[in-house]
């Protein structure tokens, strides 16, 4: 073998190894994002589960979530507004459902947003209400690898889940979601729940 061929083979070998290492690296980088967030809500798990189980309620908790439509027993269609303006839609399936305890879901294959997650309703130590935990795993859609889901929706998924949990707590502990506006710009009627005997006086 002449020297040029040897060099060429060596380069090719290194290049192949390089590509192999690089793609491993890429796959690890593109392994998605996972996180969990939780909050304590002073209501029975049964009530909180029931609200969450009816997916049509969820847009009340997430500003960018336009609608969640039940398609059948286990399939739902999610529509979110994107930062660019055009709504993004995908479908998800129920993967687990334990009464008053847990709801799990996963987006169907081919969805523009790949996501899986669960919400759990757990008793707290000392009986001070229910611990609500959301775990979410998501993969940015192609074309958004660098900028990520945050660029797509204008808010990071962590932020959206944290906001959702806060608003869930406000809704169920006080019957309304805190707003600082002085005009009723969003004239939706919040789900008004007066909880008997729960207005303390000072």
């Amino acid at each position, binding site marked *: 073998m002449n020297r040029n061929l040897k060099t060429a083979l060596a380069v090719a070998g290194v290049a192949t190894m390089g590509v192999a290492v690089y793609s491993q690296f890429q796959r690890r980088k593109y392994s998605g994002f996972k996180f969990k967030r939780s909050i*304590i809500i002073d209501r029975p798990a049964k009530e909180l589960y029931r609200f969450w189980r009816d997916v049509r309620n969820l847009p009340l908790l997430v500003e960018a979530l336009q609608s969640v439509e039940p398609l059948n027993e286990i399939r739902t269609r999610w529509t979110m507004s994107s930062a660019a303006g055009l709504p993004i839609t995908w479908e998800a399936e129920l993967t687990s459902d334990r009464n008053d305890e847990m709801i799990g879901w996963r987006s169907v294959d081919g969805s523009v947003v790949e996501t899986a997650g669960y919400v759990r309703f757990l008793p707290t130590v000392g009986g001070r209400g229910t611990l609500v935990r959301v775990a979410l795993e998501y993969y940015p859609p192609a074309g958004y690898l660098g900028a990520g889901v945050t660029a797509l929706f204008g808010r990071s998924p962590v932020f959206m889940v944290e906001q959702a949990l806060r608003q869930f707590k406000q809704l169920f502990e006080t019957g309304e979601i*805190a707003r*600082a506006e002085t005009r009723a710009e969003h004239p939706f009627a919040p789900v008004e729940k007066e*909880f008997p005997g729960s207005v303390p006086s000072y």
Partner: protein
Amino acid sequence: MRTVQWMGKHHVEVTNAPDPEIVNPHDAIVRVTLTAICGSDLHLYNGFIPTMKKGDVLGHEFMGEVVETGTAVHNLNRGDRVVVPFTIACGRCFFCKKDLWSLCDNTNPNAWMADMLYGESGSALFGYSHIYGGFSGGQAEYVRVPFADVGPIKVPENLSDEKVLFLSDIFPTAYMAAENCQIRGGDTVAVWGCGPVGLLAIKSAFMLGAGRVIAIDEIPERLQKAAQLGAEPIDFSFMDVLEVLKEWTGSRGPDSCIDAVGMEAHGWTPGAIYDRAKQSLMLETDRPNVLRQAIMCCRKGGVVSVPGVYGGLIDKFPIGAAFAKGLTLRMGQTHVHRFLKPLLERIESSEIDPSFVITHRMTLAEAERGYKIFQEKQDDCIKVVMTP
């Protein structure tokens, strides 16, 4: 309606804004009959508090007449005369139920901001930047009051506005600061700051059984007012506070200390100069000059009570002294709701008339001047109240 709006550092304007309306079921709309400028408003005026936007309506000490109520408000009617706490509390969360109203979980729509800065958000406040919710404040003709079934307290007709206005903030603030001192009969209490809160804290300390109150400031008129209340004044512009306090108390130090000054402490001691230098270089956000003094002066096993306000980070905090002397530090935003009824009773029984702190009365339209003279302590200004 006319409102006092923040426009930047040392810049407020009286401008029109749309009248508020009911947004949530527990809201009420209050027509303001009297409002005031708070010492903590000066931190906003001086540009120390982040997340302010041009056009934000200021003010968190206000009272007036209920003109509208939301569908879920059953304890108030149109025409009721109320004083409104500056902290917005839901009354239903873990913290409200524990009587910790200023730590409410559920009233701050911008809780995520405070979470980032402090770990967890407390209650929203009226007119005090977007970190505290971005709620339109009380230096206006009308205010939208959330959770009107929990906050506002009805006040009797025979008590003038000036007598009860300060239930909204400074009287409970001063009283809670004094109560936090755990005063035993005959105790000596030292109060730094003879502004409205400090003066009311002096009064509260005596009400709670203090045998002796020492008041520290540099403004002659304020020290004079403190002396009128029975306090012994120390003018720090020419007296060494540490030395004098120690000498006056047989080397023991006061039983408890109240820091009614907070983050914009004055003074030109080496420590204070250090703080100013660091602040101008943005290496320190608050000036803890008074806090350091309080810790150094307080007797062993005593209490340092901090009604505040502090916002960020401080440097050179004498944790060693606090540890060595076994001090208790008690602090925080006022749990106004806890004190409304008991303090209204004290006013009704003529035990105290908080209006003694008022030095200037003007209309809302003169607010620019009000802020200026309050900030610069001109014209013997101690407290400015305004009628819309």
